């Protein structure tokens, strides 16, 4: 049989897009940020600060306060005071007005917030502008509406707030994760102590400024910055009623052990290794786009990323050929450029982790394929990567890489793919691509994943509950279900 000649299309050779950077002259950033406790910015007890850098340039942006146990205690006291004296006594309709005001202020500052999010975390301006910031505002809008309707949300169950919530959030969607945590907590009548991730504190601190401006009573929301020990201190604090954590499964397990034997309520949103499943009758070109979005959105720094591709063997060759072709039109580079598709990796630590997995994949015998794009010399960048000919037994198919790396396997029957999709300790999300509606319904009931996307991927909305099964955690954020973790009945 004659060897098929490989036809390739070339892009960006004759027509190169000129740089189109988003303006940064309008943003207001301070050289140093303190802790936001009881409505004011106060110096950290230790007097210590640490640098936050721009992962695309490795340059320092600002100094961030490092909280210690005493600061945690002050914050919790402020939250408790605000809860007892003000927030639990305020009519729900009034609470709603503050939440709504915060939503409007986020919208008004949207451009500034997107630029700062991109500078601090490395994600492309296109994503922070079009996805992160609008969704964050929407969460506040949505939960503002629930504040005075809790009796309707849970008829005959007489829901009551818990008190003080301690919340620890990750670096992949800094402002959005803050919104996911703060909005439902406030709507249900609780007060908050929140710790953003150490590499991405800036938008949480800008949110603190917005909260100040909204007139929210002092102490209702407190934002304390710092490294892991600050979070541990919050988890162990005796006067916190509820812990909400989004982050790695390992830390989640530690937290669950730490609160065992206490009466603290807990919700965890942890890691994932989602299966993105392409059947032979799927709309192939749209499925390829869905695969791309599933793993390269936010540089793959997504807990629900579609990091395991299962493609039915009969269409595998076509899908893989199209994936390789699509890789060539992904622009990797300066996150502030409006045309950048894939920005910077969030930190040196994460970059090293991803590169380590690339080595593991190659050493384990999987075939690595990367885009031919050039990446900037400075900053933390990874080329979008495919691993072909993998199996469930490869480490890159089992362990969460949290980067732009896709492990590709083939499958033959629906029973096989259900078994393999579920054959993972995680259970956060999954994607199903098929033209047959009945097959979608069949799979949604059999896949052990909290979120199943059909003919799409990475779609989020404040009305839609998000959370996992198994080691991806428990509890839901978003929708009516997102109110439950912050209430007692």
């Amino acid at each position, binding site marked *: 049989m004659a060897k098929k000649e490989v036809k390739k299309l070339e892009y960006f050779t004759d027509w190169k*897009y000129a740089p189109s950077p988003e303006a940064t002259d309008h943003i207001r950033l301070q050289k140093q940020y303190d802790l936001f406790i009881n409505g004011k910015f106060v110096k950290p007890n230790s007097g210590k600060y640490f640098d936050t850098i721009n992962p695309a340039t490795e340059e320092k942006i600002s100094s961030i306060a490092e909280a210690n146990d005493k600061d945690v205690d002050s914050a919790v006291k402020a939250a408790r005071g605000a809860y007892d004296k003000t927030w639990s006594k305020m009519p729900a309709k009034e609470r709603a007005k503050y939440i709504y005001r915060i939503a409007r202020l986020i919208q008004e500052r949207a451009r500034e917030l997107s630029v700062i999010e991109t500078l601090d975390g490395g994600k492309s301006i296109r994503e922070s502008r079009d996805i992160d910031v609008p969704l964050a505002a929407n969460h506040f809008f949505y939960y503002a509406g629930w504040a005075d309707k809790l009796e309707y949300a849970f008829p005959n169950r007489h829901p009551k707030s818990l008190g003080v919530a301690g919340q620890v959030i990750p670096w992949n969607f800094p402002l959005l994760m803050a919104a996911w945590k703060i909005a439902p907590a406030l709507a249900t009548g609780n007060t908050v102590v929140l710790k953003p991730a150490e590499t991405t504190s800036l938008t949480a601190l800008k949110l603190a400024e917005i909260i100040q401006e909204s007139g929210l009573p002092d102490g209702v929301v407190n934002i304390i910055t710092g490294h892991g020990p600050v979070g541990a201190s919050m988890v162990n604090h005796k006067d916190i009623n509820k812990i909400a954590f989004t982050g790695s499964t390992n830390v989640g397990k530690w937290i669950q052990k730490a609160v065992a034997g206490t009466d603290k309520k807990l919700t965890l949103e942890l890691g994932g290794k989602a299966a993105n499943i392409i059947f032979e009758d799927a709309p192939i070109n749209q499925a390829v786009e869905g695969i791309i979005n599933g793993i390269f959105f936010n540089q793959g720094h997504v807990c629900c990323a579609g990091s395991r591709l299962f493609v039915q063997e009969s269409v595998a060759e076509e899908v893989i050929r199209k994936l390789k072709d699509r890789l060539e039109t992904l622009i990797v580079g300066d996150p502030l450029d409006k045309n950048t598709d894939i920005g910077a990796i969030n930190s040196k630590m994460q970059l090293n982790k991803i590169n380590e997995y690339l080595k593991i994949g190659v050493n384990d015998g999987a075939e690595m394929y990367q885009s031919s794009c050039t990446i900037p010399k400075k900053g933390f960048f990874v080329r979008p990567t495919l691993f072909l000919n993998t199996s469930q037994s490869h480490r890159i198919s089992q362990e969460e890489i949290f980067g732009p790396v896709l492990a590709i396997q083939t499958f033959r029957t629906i029973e096989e793919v259900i078994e393999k999709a579920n054959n993972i300790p995680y259970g956060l999300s999954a994607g199903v691509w098929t033209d047959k509606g009945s097959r979608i319904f069949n799979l949604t009931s059999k896949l052990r994943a909290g979120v199943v996307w059909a*003919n799409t991927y990475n779609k989020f909305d404040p009305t839609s509950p998000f959370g996992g099964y198994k080691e991806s955690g428990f509890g839901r954020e978003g929708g009516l279900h997102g109110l439950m973790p912050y209430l007692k009945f």
Partner: protein
Amino acid sequence: MTYDFRQSPVVDQVGIEERVARFNTRSIKKGSKVQALKLALNMIDLTTLEGKDTEGKVTQMCYKAMHPHLALPDLPSTAAVCVYPTMVKVAKEALKGSKVKVASVSTAFPSGNSTMQIKLLDTKLALDNGADEIDMVISRGEFLKGNYNFVFDEIAAIKDLTHKYNARLKVIFETGEISTLDNVRRASDIAIYAGANFIKTSTGKIGVAATMPVTLVMLDAIKDYYFKTGIQVGMKPAGGISTAKGALQYLVMLHETLGNAWLDNKWFRFGASSLANDLILQLEKEAKGVYYSKDYISVD
């Protein structure tokens, strides 16, 4: 190579619309913008298909095609003009010596509701008068009845004829009438396999003309064919594209779907009449820094 047109690939409309929205987030500035504006101008099939067309009207339009805006040096001419068969001779005469081609509609344009015999005669008239390109329409009624082989055969018959004259064939689907993206894909496959040199969206004579989602489906069909055979097929969205911004969005979509090989008027055309002037307005603005009044740009 056998192909069952009942089995053409399915298309997910939501996915297509999202892909289009993603293309539209591209920001084309400075040198890359000027380059694209000039390319778009050079890709226009300047069109007049009115009942009231006369030799005078067509001649004046042909001058515009060759010299879109003499006030700016280095502007390319348009790719072609598009007229009814009875105006082909006039157009050929007016365009003598230039690189602008003459495309003629035929096959009982725009409805296509006539016999094969009449459609062939209509085409032959245009070709005898010197048309370089033929823009034919498919029988949408037969298509919607499921007679895909009928549509294949009629395209092949017109292709045979145009091929004898070394002319190129564009096949118009009238996507507004065949309605779904699945049907657009199916029509694309039928036309491509029947020998179309170009696949084209619309006649411009009904309410719904070219859209980006429809165009993307057609570009995908062209891409699949290229990977199967190595053969290039051209694409022409027609009607409804009147702004430079819109044209640039189409070019981004074309560029990132089919690549550099298609960024040429041999493989991509805009079926438009008022687009040229908005492109010129934008080129003037890039050159001089301000927007001029439309009165500085000729209407022909």
